[in-house]
């Protein structure tokens, strides 16, 4: 694995390390009209065990950001224009076996130590002593050991994300064969190190590498018993994974195909698949948008419960602010490829600081609004083709000032845990005449 250092100042030894840090991520797309800056300088951290919400309108780049974690953005037409996504794998704390102690800061989990310096702090880990992987740089084979294993993803439409030609059993077995083949062999009491053609065959089967002919050989009497044991071991794990997402009677559901299940059940299967290997980070890309409100409530409850039990960090992507409030600890608001505001979930709702966040919240129909008096954000999302250095929200912002068209605001901290990219909060020093304020409304 390629190991790279993080750019920031080195944290003190054994301080809780964020499980992932996105640093100045830029993903562009080539199009006929020019280069679309879909994600243009996005930075945020995901702390271990937290749920970070990423909200924004259609086309603001939230899904592209999420897919970049697993390098799922097709290139071309995509262009990796810069930045890095640093991932720090965690494991259960040995001192307290996950119950929470002083060593792991009561979180029950500690980051893996850096392979080069074994925790002492060296150049590859920027002195932090933690194993740090740049997901955008590592070779494809190494990424495959992380995908679905350390970082898992659930998608918006479970009907499309599950393979219609595979039963739920095969769907989930794939995960275990791919990432847990040694454990499976051990559970099936098969000697994983055994030599000879028979040992090789069963090993290849357990690692999902067997070909058609090898499968045929494995179905013959001398090898069949061993193959069946391996299957039984995988089945046990599949049942356990399904049961964890509260699927009733998992042994029966296992043999069904995705089209035989309801939307809510399919989403549960996908969650079971994602959490099968107990990942450090779960990326949920609008997991409940395709579901009914009644089902949505159950899925949210489930994600929240599993998250607290496994202490998995979650990146929760949604366009629905009222949902994000229910599940997230912190919220990052994206607009036109950039971060507008990052804040603890309660602060976003009680005290939105960016004019865009204010506009979004005001647009949700609430009891207090008179009919026909919803506060809509005027105008439309700007084209992201070769944007000029200016605030992306200028043109729609009710508090716009001349400086907003001339300079680009960067997200800067305002107070405890709150970051805002707006000149209202960080007026530039040399533009005293044209500084925006919340008192002066221009439209």
């Amino acid at each position, binding site marked *: 694995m390629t190991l790279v250092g993080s750019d920031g100042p080195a944290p003190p030894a054994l301080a809780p390390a964020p499980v992932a840090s996105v640093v100045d991520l830029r993903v562009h797309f080539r199009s006929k009209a020019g280069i679309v800056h879909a994600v243009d300088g996005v930075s945020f951290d995901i702390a271990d065990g937290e749920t970070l919400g990423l909200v924004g*309108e*259609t086309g603001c780049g939230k899904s592209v950001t999420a897919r970049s974690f697993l390098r799922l953005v097709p290139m071309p037409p995509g262009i990796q224009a810069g930045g890095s996504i640093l991932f720090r794998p965690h494991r259960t704390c040995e001192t307290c076996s996950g119950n929470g102690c002083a060593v792991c800061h009561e979180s029950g989990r500690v980051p893996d130590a850096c392979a080069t310096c074994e925790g002492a702090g060296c150049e590859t880990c920027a002195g932090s002593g933690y194993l740090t992987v740049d997901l955008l740089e590592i070779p494809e084979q190494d990424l495959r050991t992380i995908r679905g294993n350390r970082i898992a993803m659930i998608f918006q439409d479970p009907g499309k994300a599950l393979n219609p030609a595979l039963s739920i059993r095969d769907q989930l077995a794939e995960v275990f064969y791919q990432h847990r083949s040694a454990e499976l062999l051990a559970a099936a009491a098969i000697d994983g190190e055994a030599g000879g053609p028979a040992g090789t065959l069963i090993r290849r089967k357990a690692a999902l590498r067997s070909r058609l002919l090898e499968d045929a050989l494995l179905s013959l009497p001398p090898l069949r018993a061993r193959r069946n044991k391996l299957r039984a071991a995988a089945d046990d794990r599949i049942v356990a994974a399904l049961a964890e997402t509260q699927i*009733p*009677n998992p*042994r*029966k559901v296992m043999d069904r195909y995705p089209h035989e299940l*309801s939307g*809510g*059940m399919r989403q549960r299967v996908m969650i079971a698949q994602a959490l099968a290997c107990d990942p450090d980070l779960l990326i949920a890309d609008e997991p409940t948008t395709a579901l*009914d*409100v*009644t089902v*949505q*409530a*159950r899925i*949210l*409850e489930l994600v929240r419960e599993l998250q607290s039990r496994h202490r998995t960090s979650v990146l929760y992507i949604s*366009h*629905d*602010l*009222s*949902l994000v*409030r*229910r599940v997230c600890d912190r919220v990052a608001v994206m607009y036109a490829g950039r971060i507008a505001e990052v804040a603890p979930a309660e602060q976003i*709702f009680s005290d939105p600081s960016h004019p865009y966040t204010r*506009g*979004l*919240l*005001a*647009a*949700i*129909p*609430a*009891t*207090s*609004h008179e*009919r*026909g*008096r*919803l*506060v*809509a*954000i005027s105008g*439309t*999302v700007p084209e992201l083709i070769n944007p000029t250095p200016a605030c992306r929200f200028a043109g729609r912002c009710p508090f716009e000032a001349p400086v907003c068209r001339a300079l680009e605001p960067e997200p800067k901290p305002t107070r405890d845990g709150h970051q805002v990219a707006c000149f209202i909060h960080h007026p530039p020093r040399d533009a005293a005449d044209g500084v925006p304020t919340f008192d002066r409304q221009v439209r």
Partner: protein
Amino acid sequence: MTAAGDTARPPRGSRDEVVLAVRDLGKYFPIREGALQKVVGHIKAVDGVSFDIAPGQTVGLVGESGCGKTTLGRCVAGLSEPTNGGVYFGLETATKERLDSLLSVTERTASQESELEQLDNRHRVDRMNGDAWRRYRRNCQVVFQESFASLNPRQLVKDIVGRPLRVHREASGSQLTERVVELLAQVGLGRQHLYRFPHQFSGGQRQRISIARALALDPELVILDEPTSALDVSVQAQILNLLHELQQERHLAYLFITHDLSVVRHMADRIVVMYVGRVAEAGPTEVIFDRPQHPYTEALLASSPDVDAHTVDLQALEGAIPDPALPPQGCRFHTRCAVATPTCGWEVDDVVRWLEDVEGTFDTLRGVTRMSPFDAWLSFEDEAAAASLAATLRSEAIPQAMRTALEELTVDARRVRVRFTPVDEVQLTVRGSEHVAACVLDRA
């Protein structure tokens, strides 16, 4: 409007007119099986729904997916023909009362029968033909959810919005263009958009084009089938404001179909809550939201996140939506209801619904002999399985209300007889002014 259009209809907003009356509407889809495609059953997508829409009023239709709200909307729009009952259009209050009294009589005399026939021919949408049908078509327009799928990708905006005017011979040539520009201006678009194709617009703009097309013939009723569910919240706010403005200006009546409760609360005067093809509860918006009488309405409200609420936790609804081909007896919601009573219509199918997820209960089921939905013999492969089912049915695994409703449970070797108290379908009962709910409980 041309002169012909004005004389064809009484003046707008007259008090003694309902725009639309839906009476006992049913729409069944046949289930066909086998080589001969024999009809083996029906999916009752809509089953006995009644409500009125007054001029200038917005009626919200809410429910989970598959509850029949879109099918109902299609029947109202005349896009599919109802199996039972009907949609009545252009009734005056006196005529509507006469119709209701005729419909409520179970055994009609020959004269009553012919009077009803006459009313049907004049006002029932699926019986209309010729002028009456044309008049209905111009007065009832639809805005669909998928604005991209409902606009012809090969036509210019001018043709899309001008089409209804052309079909109804209202305008042509340069006059048509001017009318289209007028309509576009009303929905916040301009002359520069006339010669563009749908794909050149954003989602919100396309929905505006759909609205402009719906308004072209100055209808009395617009059916809005999830008009904002594909849009972002800031765009949704723009569209909702626009819809409200247009309603104020033109005194439109809306049938607003949606699953988003915050939107319906904002827009609707009256709400109809549907569950598995039937009306669970209907009433004025504030009453439905403040004092819901049906447990399903309560569950829907509890499961939708509200950005205002701070403390109230989401409450999820257990179980899945029942199959509309085999709707539950009694109250259709009893299979998922938190406050179900023994008289809610427990039946033999509930035994399967509750226990099929319990491992090993139904693996050895061989057959079911039904005497009625409430009474059946279940036969198993061996005696142990029969005994275990009987034991489970007496245990805590099934709800208390269901155990109370269980009148007979006999084990006869490999067979088990299960008999519940027969219950009629729960009807809508009056709970307050214009407020009805179909629930056996009265919690007023």
